[in-house]
Every structure is written in C-alpha cells, then in structure tokens.
C-alpha cells in the first residue's frame, strides 16, 4: 500500500485533475463496450460473451485501415461499420438459432466465438502487440490545465464520449426506433402482433451493440497495445458494470463506468496491484443489498 502518494495527489488540484481525466478515458472505453453488452442483453436476452472480441476486432480493423490508408478518421468510420457487419453475420447465422434455448447453449455459442475469433485474429494479424499511432491532427502540444499536461487526443475522447453518451440516451429514450427497441425488450410477441419485423429489430440491436463495441476498440487503439487477448479482460469489467449499473440502463451504465474509472485511476495510486479489488467489493455489496443493480428496476 502506498497511501502517502494517494494523499499527496489529493492535496494538489493538478494531480486530481490528471487522475480524473485518466478515469474519464478509461470510463469512455468501458462505457462503449458495456452499453452495447447491456443493450444486447436487455433486448435479446443473450449474454454475449464475444462482446470483448468485437471490441478487439474494432482495434484490429483500425490498425488495418490506418496501415493501408494512413487515415484515422477513415478508421473511425470504417472500423465500427466492419464490426457491425461482423456482428450481423454472427447474429444472423449462429446466435439466431439459439434464441429461446436454455442459457447453456447461448453461453457456449458466444463462448465458442471467443475461441474462434481470438485465434483468427492471431492468424490474420499475428501474436505480437500492434499499435496505432495517435492520429496526426491530434499531435500538437498538450494543453496545460492547472499544471497538468493533457494530450489533445484525450480532450477529443472526452468530448466525443460525452456526445455519444447523450446521443445513445437520446436515441433510446426519445426516438421512434428507441421505443421499438424498448418494446422488443418488454414484449416481443406483442410487437410482432402490431406488425413489426421483430427478427430485424433483433439483428439491428445486435448490430448497434457491435458498432458500439467496435467504436470502443477504435478509440482505445491509439492508447493501448493491440493484442488478441485485449477483449478478454474488458468483457468481464463490462459485465460487472452492467450488473452494478442495472441491465439496459444507459445512464446507470455510464455512471458505473465513471466510478470504475475513478476507482482505478485513484486506486492505483494508493493501492497499486489491488485497485481492482474495490470494484469487486462494490459488486459484492451491491449484489447483497440490491441484486437488480444500483440503478436497475426489474429484479434479476
């Protein structure tokens, strides 16, 4: 334990700001993956084990697009679409067939996808760490805020992230399509009775969830090294966020992702090596007090 460095940091506004920004970056990536996971779970009732793999594919697609065209903006557009298409293929050809079957088959199927997709990534891109350079137009001197140097790319992530959180919330709560998604989550049969194409809704929700995970991968690719296993830890973290935040609750997901980021960036100062323990303790407490999650309504 290293409480002194934690207190030292808490004594200086600059350090606090630096850690908060670090937390926001972690939270943004987690939010993107977890919200897609939450959406798919809420509407389709399928816990998509392979969601971390979609995030991983987002990062690899970015690498490929950047390597070929040298343009990160293009990757920001193409990679999520590519991940969305991958998701649609998985849903249309495989996951569709296990709807309504016991959980075991859904879990095993999406689990098998991890095995296959991880190895395919190894075959296509190799086992070594890849990296994507920070895009050119963000490579300018970092901004000095209260003595803390904030890279330009971080600012971009924070702004884009805030826009995305609001956008996803608005889309689900206020638009017609969002209402259809809510209806599909509550009563798919009734929705079918009023003439909606429910399988199409399912596919588009899966595509949307995949695009979100892919977007997470794109944003994370200049920050982290790209390896086939990168999806395996984020899927568990995202799941914990969904459990604590309450399934299908976008704002809850965001708040818990934020909490997760803060715990990690401050925890690593005071309790290096054990920073993740907090989030597990929080999860255990939440499960005992409110099994439906901090912000959840329905009982799990």
């Amino acid at each position: 334990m290293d409480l002194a460095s934690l207190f030292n940091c808490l004594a200086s506004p600059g350090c606090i700001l630096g850690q908060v920004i670090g937390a926001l970056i972690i939270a943004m990536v987690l939010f993107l993956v977890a919200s897609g996971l939450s959406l798919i779970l809420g509407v389709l009732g399928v816990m998509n084990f392979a969601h971390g793999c979609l995030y991983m594919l987002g990062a690899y697609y970015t690498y490929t697009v950047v390597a070929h065209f040298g343009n990160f903006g293009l990757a920001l557009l193409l990679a999520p679409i590519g991940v969305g298409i991958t998701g649609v293929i998985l849903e249309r050809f495989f996951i569709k067939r296990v709807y309504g079957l016991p959980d075991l088959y859904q879990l095993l199927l999406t689990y098998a996808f991890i095995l296959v997709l991880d190895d395919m990534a190894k075959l296509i891109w190799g086992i070594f760490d890849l990296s994507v350079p920070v895009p050119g137009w963000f490579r300018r001197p970092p901004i000095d805020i209260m003595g803390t140097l904030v890279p330009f790319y971080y600012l971009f992530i924070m702004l884009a992230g805030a826009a995305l959180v609001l956008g996803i919330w608005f889309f689900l709560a206020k638009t017609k399509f969002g209402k259809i998604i809510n209806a599909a989550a509550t009563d798919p049969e009734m929705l079918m009775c009023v003439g909606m194409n429910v399988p199409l809704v399912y596919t588009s929700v899966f595509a949307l969830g995949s695009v979100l995970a892919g977007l997470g991968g794109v944003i994370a690719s200049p920050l982290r090294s790209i390896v086939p296993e990168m999806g395996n830890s984020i899927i568990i973290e995202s799941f914990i966020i969904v459990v604590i935040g309450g399934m299908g609750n976008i704002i809850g997901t965001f708040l818990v992702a934020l909490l997760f980021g803060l715990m990690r960036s401050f925890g690593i100062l005071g309790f290096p090596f054990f920073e993740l323990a907090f989030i597990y303790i929080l999860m255990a407490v939440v499960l005992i007090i409110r099994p439906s999650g901090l912000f959840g309504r329905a009982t799990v």
Partner: protein
Amino acid sequence: MKFILSNTWLLFLTAFLVVFPLAFPLLSFVNIVSEMLIMALFAVSLNLLIGYTGIISFGHAAFFAVGSYTVGIMLQKLSGSLPLAIPSVLLCAMIFSGIAALVIGYFCTRLTAIYFSFLTLAFSQIVYAVIIKWASFTGGDQGLIGGIPKPPLPFFGFPIDMTSPFSLYYLNVILTILSFFFLKIITDSPFGWILRSIRDNPERINFLGINVKRYQIIVFIISGVFTGLAGGLMALHLSGSYPDHAYWAKNAEPIFMIMVGGLRIFAGPILGSVIVTELSAYLSSYIQMRGLIFGGILVLLLMISREGILDVLAARWKAIKKANL
C-alpha cells in the same frame, strides 16, 4: 454392494486401468491416461452443476487453481516434514477449494442463469489476478517452477517412491475412481434427484418447500471440492502449478468435454475427456489453432445436435427398449 454391481462399467474401467500398465508398462499410456482421468474428474464435478443442477459455472478454473496451488505451495514449503505429505496436501487442496466454493457460491447463487455464470467467471478472474500479482507466494506468471517435491508414501511400512510416474498413475487412478463412485452415489441419491428437479423447474421445487439456493450452494461446494482435488492431482502430474490453471480459457476444456461426451449421463464427461485429451495431444503441433478447432467444433455441435455422444446413444437405447416392450 448393490450400488457397485449396478455400475459395472466403473468396475471394468478400474480393472482395465489397474491391469493394463502392469501388462504393458508404457510411459506414454500412463501419462496420457493420468491426464484424461484428472480432466475427467474436473469435467464430472463441473457437470454436477451444468448437467444435473442446470447452473452453469464458467469460473471453475478458480477451484482447479486453488487445488493446484495448495498442493504445489505446500509441498514446496513443507517438503518431507510430514509423514503423509501427499495425502495431507491433497486433503488440504479439497478443503481450501471447498472454502473458496463456499464464499464464491454464496455470492453467485444470489443471481440466476447467465448472471450466475458471469459472476463465477468474474470471481475466477480475481483468483487469476491474485496468482499473477502475488508473485512472491505463487511465482507470478511463471508459475511454481523448480518442480514439486514428492516425498515417498508409506504403505504398511514400505515407502512407495512417488516420483515414479507409475506410482503417481496409480494414485490418480485410485483417487479419481473413488471420486467417481462418490459422485455417482450423490447423483443417484434423493439429493441428486432434487438437483435434477431444480434444473427442470426451480419455481415448483421452491413451492414444495425446498430451499433451492441452499441446495445450489451445497452442490457448488461439492463440485468445487472435487475440482480442487483434480487441480491438486494436476499439480502432482505436471510437477508444477501455473497461472494458466486459473485462466478462464481453462474452463473451456471441461465444458467442451461435457458437450462432446454428453451432459445427461454420468459417464458422458469421462468419455468426453478421453476424446478431447486425445484430440489435443494429436493437435499439439497445431497449438496456435487449438481455439479455432475447438471453438469450431463447439459451434458445429451447437448448430447440429446440441447433445453429446452418450446423450444420443442413451436416447437411442431407450427408444429400442421401448420398441421391444
């Protein structure tokens, strides 16, 4: 006695496993069969949850690792100071994994279905993280290297040399077969039938006044204890414990074995273990594509039959019997 006679296949299996190496002392046979038996014990214990109780743990690697590291660390630290070192550390492995299962099971059984599965996975990741980070105790990502000392086992005054792969093989045979018998007795007991009814209709069982959660925790602990034993035996077999034992990909193997062999028949996971272990030994030169091949087969299985070999055979057998009546 009646029980033993009604499970003649286990007796035949035991007789074969005991006699064959006496007649043909092949090191390769002894090695691969040890691995098959250990993984079969892992898979059978896990199937107590998946096939019988209908709750799917994706985090059983945690108990496998607790067992494995208990044996590894205790033997390295105690080496030789205990007269019955190997049996005592194996017992400790079972006790510690049982305690771990009690704690993890207490939280996980508060949730149902997929939430349960993911929570078990999350807990196994904690165990994995502890193993990696607590390097001074566990050896970190290197694992417990340098070999595990195996003090001789006194047997009516004769010390048996446990470093010989053959005596280790017989230890594996005895302990796994005894565990199979014990687990078979459990699944055939009233307790086992309550587990099946929990799988088929938990609400109804709850209305009958049976505490579903309590049964789930108990079976979770039993399963964890025997998974821990399997882990302990694996540490002896490999003469080392590795963080890989706790990694979630380790869960894929027993689940795959259950799916291939059959999940409604007790012997299903055992057959699955034989097939999968043989297959992975055969595929060891394609280690890079293991996941691709296993995952591909799993997807195919799920798309086509959703049943293991013994499930299909048992259904056929029932149909034939019915037709003859």
